[in-house]
């Protein structure tokens, strides 16, 4: 009797997938399902009927202004936080800093990039608020920052507060990117007659540019989604889109949960665009720096 031998490879269960299970569960429960619910509820009224009123409501004042304010503050802190973080990462990479500064800067960055919310707002109120410690010291030295028009509870003040967690995040991501620049590229450029400036202008900086832009997009998203810091610091004085959504959800005065969902959907779309840009730029960077 002829026997048949199966040549198809047997599929073995891989334990690697077990490690990924929490991630997929998390993504489904807290990203996919809420986003789907958000999308559906954005097109419903309070009674659950289909409506476009929430979407058209996004064009009603002050919602567009809130989006614009959030975009501006996110862009400003992403750009300046990005520049500051990059310069710090570059200084570290140059190898000319005192040795003790290397672990100190990284530890600070790791802590500060996660230090946001009420505690951060409280820290800034205590230092740069009207009666803050730094404000008082500066005043004692003859520099009255509030007299010069500075206000912690303004666009500038909130931007400064956001910078506290923005530039450390830039530093954390840029350090490995700068370290990924091969020594041979610099030597090859030098060997071909390039000065240090020419190397950075034509090789080093263009190679880092996708990483820099990608991380700035990440910083943008980081600031765009921030709520607690802004709310704790300014109350309702700065109408960021996250504060607007909070107001609709809590229902203190305005209570239209579905309009809140529509606003959140707008945020998700803006964040999604940032994420697509980030992924694209990271792919270029990985291809170059691998």
């Amino acid at each position: 009797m002829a026997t048949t031998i199966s040549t198809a490879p047997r599929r073995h269960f891989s334990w690697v997938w077990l490690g990924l299970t929490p991630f997929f569960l998390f993504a489904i429960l807290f990203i996919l399902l809420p986003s789907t619910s958000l999308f559906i509820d954005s097109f419903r009224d309070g009674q659950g009927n289909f409506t476009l009123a929430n979407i058209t409501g996004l064009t009603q004042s002050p919602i567009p202004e809130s989006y614009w304010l959030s975009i501006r503050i996110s862009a400003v802190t992403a750009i300046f936080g990005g520049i500051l973080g990059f310069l710090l990462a570059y200084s570290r990479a140059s190898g000319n800093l005192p040795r003790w500064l290397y672990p100190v800067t990284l530890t600070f960055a790791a802590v500060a990039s996660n230090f946001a919310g009420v505690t951060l707002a409280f820290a800034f109120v205590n230092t740069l608020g009207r009666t803050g410690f730094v404000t008082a010291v500066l005043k004692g030295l003859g520099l009255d920052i509030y007299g010069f028009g500075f206000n912690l509870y303004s666009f500038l003040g909130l931007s400064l507060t956001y910078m506290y967690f923005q530039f450390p995040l830039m530093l954390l991501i840029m350090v490995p990117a700068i370290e990924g620049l091969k020594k041979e590229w610099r030597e090859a450029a030098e060997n071909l007659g390039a000065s240090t400036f020419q190397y950075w202008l034509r090789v080093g900086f263009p190679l880092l540019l996708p990483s820099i832009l990608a991380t700035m997009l990440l910083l943008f998203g980081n600031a765009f989604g921030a709520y607690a810091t802004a709310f704790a610091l300014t109350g309702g004085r700065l109408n960021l889109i996250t504060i607007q959504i909070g107001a609709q959800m809590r229902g203190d005065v305005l209570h239209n949960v579905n309009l809140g969902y529509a606003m959140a959907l707008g945020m998700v779309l803006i964040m999604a665009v940032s994420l697509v840009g980030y992924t694209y730029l990271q792919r270029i960077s990985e291809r170059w720096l691998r």
Partner: protein
Amino acid sequence: MAFLELTNVRKVFPNAQTPAVEDFNLNVNAGEFVSFLGPSGCGKTTTLRMIAGFETATSGSIVMDGRDITPIRPNQRNIGMVFQSYALFPNMNVADNIGFGLKVGGKSKPEIKERVGEMLALIKLEELGNRYPYQLSGGQQQRVALARAIAIRPQLLLLDEPLSALDAKIRLSLRNEIRSIQRQLGITTVYVTHDQEEALSLSDRVVVMNRGLIEQVGPPFEIYNFPTTEFVASFVGTLNLLKVKVIDPATGAIQVDGQTFFTGRPLVNHAAGETAQIALRPGIVQSRQHGARR
């Protein structure tokens, strides 16, 4: 006068117990192809990097074309270098990589275009000017790196184990291509390798190094057939080491296990009756009919 002169060059890295390069003296003639051959850590790459200017000699001098280049920065030396890892700029296409040195040197666009075209033809990659390094094979990348180094019309070409990262077949064809381009341009070349076959087949002269010191300098034939130290004899080619009794130094007569042989050259540093060690290449052993003298 030699084109490149290295005199008493010494390099000691900070916190190192022993010098990486010591007492290095070498003259390279214009148009010559010289290889530094030795095991890992023997100082060959360090010496090459001192010539390029990436390492500073602790003492000694490096003179190129009558000019002491020891204190000169690498970007002022007009030396082309090819790296083991290619070191092509990933953000530039092939043409821009080749034209990089000309661009930073302030050459005009038409001049750069013309020279890049010449270089692409030289390495036979005319069609690939618009490709990016990640779109090329290892062999193609190294040819581009070679073209980039030559494009600036350097006075000296340095190659640091340029074929190590390539597979055997490509290594062989690129080896011949490098030699053919070097001959065509007549450019003085220093080549670093740990591959004896590469060094022996490519070079006009080979510098065998060990532990930071030069063991022997000479044409490949001499290095292979007449090694002056035990290290050179064992490092270059395969051989058998035999204890022999010297019978007649003048005629090169030696005795192994009671049988007499002739080395073919006088044994200058040995006396009759002395025990010596000979290195025997398997390839030169020939069997003759009994009674034939050899």
